[in-house]
């Protein structure tokens, strides 16, 4: 048996068919071809699969695709505006805030959600805000600096 789901993904209407027990992450990657969100742990601990659903930051591995019916989903693929990178994306590159890159889409989505709520976070607030995203390469310092720098630019400071 399968379920038909209608969603809006990065401002596009997207309808797809999925299995009942399929995660939103698997539907995004395997059915819709949006492979930016990654599966790290599959248990909501690593944040590599972060997306927003109706504006809420979530782990897409812990959402059933069927639950997304009628929802507005935003993924890393919608973050840049055409060829113009989002300030967070640009600052991640400038600060070399990534090495292997697996965790990066999740960090960017989570960082954008953080800055939406708090445009001027302290270092501690950034570290708490991104505690649900694991990175095994950078040691986090470069990520924190990239987010601080992007926040500064986005505030126009």
């Amino acid at each position, binding site marked *: 048996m399968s379920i038909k789901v209608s969603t809006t993904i990065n401002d596009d209407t997207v309808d797809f068919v999925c299995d*009942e027990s399929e*995660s939103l992450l698997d539907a995004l990657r395997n059915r819709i071809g949006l492979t930016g969100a990654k599966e790290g742990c599959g248990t*909501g601990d690593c944040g590599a699969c972060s997306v927003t659903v109706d504006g809420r930051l979530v*782990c897409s591995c812990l959402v*059933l695709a069927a639950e997304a*019916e009628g929802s507005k989903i935003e993924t890393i693929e919608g973050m840049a505006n055409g060829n113009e990178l989002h300030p967070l994306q640009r600052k991640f590159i400038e600060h070399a805030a990534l090495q292997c890159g697996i965790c990066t889409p999740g960090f960017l989505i*989570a960082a954008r959600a953080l800055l939406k709520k708090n445009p001027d976070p302290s270092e501690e607030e950034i570290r708490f805000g*991104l*505690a649900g995203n694991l990175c095994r390469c950078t040691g986090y310092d470069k990520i924190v600096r990239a987010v601080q720098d992007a926040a500064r630019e986005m505030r126009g400071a």
Partner: protein
Amino acid sequence: MRYEAPETMKAAAQMLAKAKGAAFVLAGGTDLLVKLKSGMIEPDLVIDIKRTKGAYDIKKTATGFAIGAAVSGAQLGEDRVLKKAWPGVVEAANLIGSKQVQGRCTMSGNLCNGSPAADSVPALFAAGAKVALAGPTGKRTIPIEQVPTGPGRTSLRKGEIIEQILLPKRPPKSGDAYLRFIPRTEMDIAVVSAGVNIVLDAKGTVKEARIALGAVAPTVLLVADAAKAIVGTKLDDAALEKLGAACAAACRPIDDKRGTIEFRTKVAAVLARRAAKIAYSRAGGQ
């Protein structure tokens, strides 16, 4: 596996009651989907209750607050009125998991998952919360401390689903607080925890108190003796000492990789004293 998202709680409860095989209720899914993916459970039916009426509502009522079963931690944290009235409850709920988990996790799920270490549960016990249940044949409301019966087990009957968590109205000069011990700074499960709710009289003497401990027994514990130890006092050192001793006496924890019996018992008393001081000061006590 069948997935259903009924539009009323009654329909959801009837579906759950009639289900043959393994049926589970889905709200935020932060526990259920982990169990599903790891193969710990193999559901025949998953009933998503997030499309039911009022599931995302935080209502201020004549008797306090009614919090819908799908209200997420993030949503609780954004509700200024609720946070002002019940800061301990909201802080406890906001300690669950990461920001991503906060986007989905619910207090109802935290309660039904049945973990003695659930962060929101001691705070809800201390608050004197009640639980509004929808069942296949009708509704009933029970005190929250009647819900957990053991690790992973609750007293809910077949077909019953939590519809709302009810927090009482705040009397003047009252406050609550929740503290937990974890070896990290975030993203961890409580080794021990304590929730305290205090009501003062006009002179700043403790008139009523409720004190609950987490992760020191098979269920969260309401410690009546600890509350008794501070009623009638201004939370002086002697009263705090008695409160701590009553908490330590109530502990019957396990030894595990997170903490020993001795450690949990000692820290339970420390956290309960500290949480009581915060609750007392939030109630306006000096």
